[in-house]
């Protein structure tokens, strides 16, 4: 079978799984639904591997295939196919998405076991994987938009999965609205591309774009900026990021899969996919890079002060995506994609560990109330440590190689781009500190009551079900988290998933060691060969120098965290007192929510109210009631004819026909 045939199978399996679970939820026992969900994604992963093997059989320059099943729309000048595009980039994304998804499905199999919405959960989750695969495999901008909107919906459905929680439904709406802003950007970009280049197909667009556009022409810049709106909304970059922390209202596997490993990296994929256009619009690329840089610093500072375990990790996700956006925007394409992969491993793992701890805390997410889980949950804490080390770029873990590769490229490109190196290292320091702040506050120390309960009796703490955000009491029948909680220590599927990811988080970086193997760069190179930026390659020596600096910074960060949170436990409180305004700024997330509320939401509401009072009341209502009065008056006149006498109706009929007959007789003679 050809690579494209395997790619179609990759798409088919999750879709079938979603439909089977969604329709068969009454017939299927709960375990079967989870098994089907996990098995279909695993099958998709195997098809992805087959796709990779097939692709490797081609010569490097011929590693791109397009295939289409049928025409979506074909009219004058418009030719949209249901087509996919298989090349190293999409294959890479397929493998990351299906691989991590399969593990997270396995994890959910244990984690969600007591939830009443088990079938619904797996149906949504499979649908999400299908949408994400559609997004990465799409062969034209139309299908890309379809996949883009599908993942937005799947994200909405899964964030508000516990739909009886008002906080969850509100978070879902917020995510959906902001994602739709991104969708609009993407759709407008696609329209503009079609107007200028006359095609939606990737192949045609990327071939003709360099011939049609001159560098920094306003149209191509506009296209790229619109694409960036889409990418920023999906990837939670400033200022369209506020939905991501709120999205943590969803179940933890969802945060792990969608809001850490896969969907939020769609923006990075989009920039990498359209790199041909960004090469033609260096201004837009620089805007993207600086936005990524700002996001990585802002999110890093917020993660320093967050007390909600999941939200802190969410801000860390934003920050890491900032690195990826910087990478693919300044030209370090393979490095950006490599960081995407390693981040998927360690961030999914961190969320899984966090999920396990939150389960042990009976849904409590506040780290102020957690401590001593190192003794209570040995496996979870080891997994969390592995994820944390990789996130903090501890030497020779996966994050160590990937993050520094981006910064090494920025150094090699030189000039203005040195800013990215310097501030990138500042971000790396923040990363190490906030990661180990979480670890040092949650794992060591005197066990909190919930951890003590786990140590003493081996039972997971079972509080009265309540919403941690509002304190509302909840029943557990439907639309709320299940009554029981599951921790990795007591659930084999969760342990397997976390063990595999822990291994990948620690050693996944070894596939791409500067000067040694560089597998990913070699694999992805044909895709980016057309970009002049891919000719800049940091020398092996420079890369290792960068790695050495990265290692020092990572160790320094971990050391600072150890000093502040373990050696001198009072330091952080003292720092907060000393730097009160800064802490307030960070703790309030740089006031982005408030600013958006003030600048966008309130004016929009005011305009709406004004329009309601004037236009709606006077013009629209005037038109409507005017029409109504007119029709009513006509009706009152016509009503007179309906006098109820059958004979008068008959007379009218006969006279009418006689008149008609007379008319025709006269006019024919």
């Amino acid at each position, binding site marked *: 079978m050809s690579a494209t045939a395997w790619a179609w199978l990759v798409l088919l399996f999750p879709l079938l799984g979603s439909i089977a679970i969604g329709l068969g939820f009454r017939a299927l026992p709960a375990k079967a639904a989870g098994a089907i969900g996990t098995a279909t994604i695993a099958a998709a992963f195997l098809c992805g591997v087959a796709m990779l093997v097939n692709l490797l059989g081609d010569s490097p320059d011929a590693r791109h295939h397009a295939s289409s099943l049928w025409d979506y729309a074909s009219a004058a000048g418009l030719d949209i196919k249901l087509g996919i595009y298989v090349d190293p980039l999409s294959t890479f994304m397929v493998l990351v998405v299906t691989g991590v998804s399969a593990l997270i499905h396995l994890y959910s199999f244990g984690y969600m076991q007591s939830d009443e919405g088990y079938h619904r959960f797996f149906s949504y989750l499979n649908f999400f994987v299908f949408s994400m695969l559609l997004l990465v495999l799409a062969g034209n901008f139309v299908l890309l938009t379809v996949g883009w909107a599908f993942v937005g919906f799947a994200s909405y459905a899964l964030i508000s999965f516990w739909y009886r929680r008002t906080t969850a439904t509100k978070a879902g709406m917020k995510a959906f609205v902001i994602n739709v802003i991104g969708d609009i950007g993407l759709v407008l970009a696609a329209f503009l591309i079609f107007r200028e280049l006359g095609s939606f197909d990737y192949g045609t667009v990327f071939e003709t774009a360099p011939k049609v556009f001159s560098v920094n022409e306003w149209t191509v810049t506009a296209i790229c900026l619109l694409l960036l709106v889409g990418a920023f909304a999906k990837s939670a970059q400033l200022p369209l990021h506020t939905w991501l922390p709120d999205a943590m209202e969803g179940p933890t596997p969802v945060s792990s899969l969608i809001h850490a490993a896969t969907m939020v990296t769609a923006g990075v994929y989009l920039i990498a996919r359209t790199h041909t256009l960004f090469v033609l619009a260096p201004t837009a690329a620089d805007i993207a890079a600086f936005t990524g840089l700002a996001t990585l610093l802002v999110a890093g500072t917020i993660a320093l002060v967050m007390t909600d375990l999941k939200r802190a990790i969410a801000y860390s996700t934003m920050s890491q995506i900032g690195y990826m956006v910087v990478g693919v925007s300044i030209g370090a394409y393979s490095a950006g994609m490599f960081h995407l992969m390693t981040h998927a491993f360690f961030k999914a793992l961190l969320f899984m560990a966090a999920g396990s701890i939150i389960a042990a805390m009976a849904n409590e997410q506040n780290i102020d109330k957690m401590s001593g889980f190192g003794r209570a949950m040995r496996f979870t804490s080891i997994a969390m440590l592995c994820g944390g080390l990789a996130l903090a770029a501890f030497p020779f873990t996966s994050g160590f190689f990937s993050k520094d590769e981006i910064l090494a490229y920025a150094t090699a490109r030189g000039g203005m781009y040195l800013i990215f190196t310097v501030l990138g290292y500042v971000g790396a320091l923040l990363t190490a500190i906030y990661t180990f702040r979480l670890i040092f506050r949650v794992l060591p120390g005197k066990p909190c009551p919930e951890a003590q309960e786990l140590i003493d009796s081996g039972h997971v703490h079972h509080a009265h079900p309540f919403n941690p955000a509002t304190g509302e009491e909840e029943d557990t029948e439907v639309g709320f988290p299940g009554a029981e909680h599951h921790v990795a220590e007591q659930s084999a599927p969760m342990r397997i998933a976390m063990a595999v990811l822990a291994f990948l988080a620690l050693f996944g970086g070894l596939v791409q060691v500067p000067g040694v193997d560089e597998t990913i760069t070699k694999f992805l190179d044909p895709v980016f060969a057309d970009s002049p930026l891919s000719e800049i390659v940091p020398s092996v020596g420079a890369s290792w120098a960068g790695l050495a600096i990265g290692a020092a910074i990572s160790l320094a960060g971990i050391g600072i965290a150890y000093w502040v949170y373990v050696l001198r436990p009072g330091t952080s409180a003292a720092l907060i007192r000393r730097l009160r305004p800064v802490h307030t700024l960070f703790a309030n997330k740089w006031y982005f929510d408030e600013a958006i509320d003030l600048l966008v939401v309130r004016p929009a509401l005011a305009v709406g109210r004004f329009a309601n009072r004037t236009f709606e009341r006077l013009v629209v209502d005037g038109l409507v009631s005017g029409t109504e009065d007119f029709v009513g008056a006509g009706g009152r006149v*016509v*009503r*007179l*004819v*309906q*006098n*109820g*006498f*059958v*004979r008068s109706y*008959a*007379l009218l009929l*006969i006279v009418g026909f006689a008149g008609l007959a007379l008319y025709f007789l006269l006019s024919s003679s």
Partner: protein
Amino acid sequence: MNVEWYVVLSSLLFAIGATGILIRRSPVVILLCLELMLNAGNLALVAFSRMVGNQQGQVFAIVVMVVAACEVVIGLGLIVAIFRRRLPLDVDELTELRG
């Protein structure tokens, strides 16, 4: 015989039927007059069919008879229903449909 005679007879029957519908009040008689009009039409159809020399008019006349039979069934059914509910059998009294 000439076709004009048939047409004249048909027109006369039609006119009688129409007049009956307009001036009578009993629903039964109105129904009879309606039949008369339909059969006037049938007569014209058959006459013209003979004049032209094909069978289509006759076939059509049979279709009209079927329709007439159906219409009578419904009409008589209505009349019986009106009678059973002890309503006056007078179309001028039954003016419920006034607008």
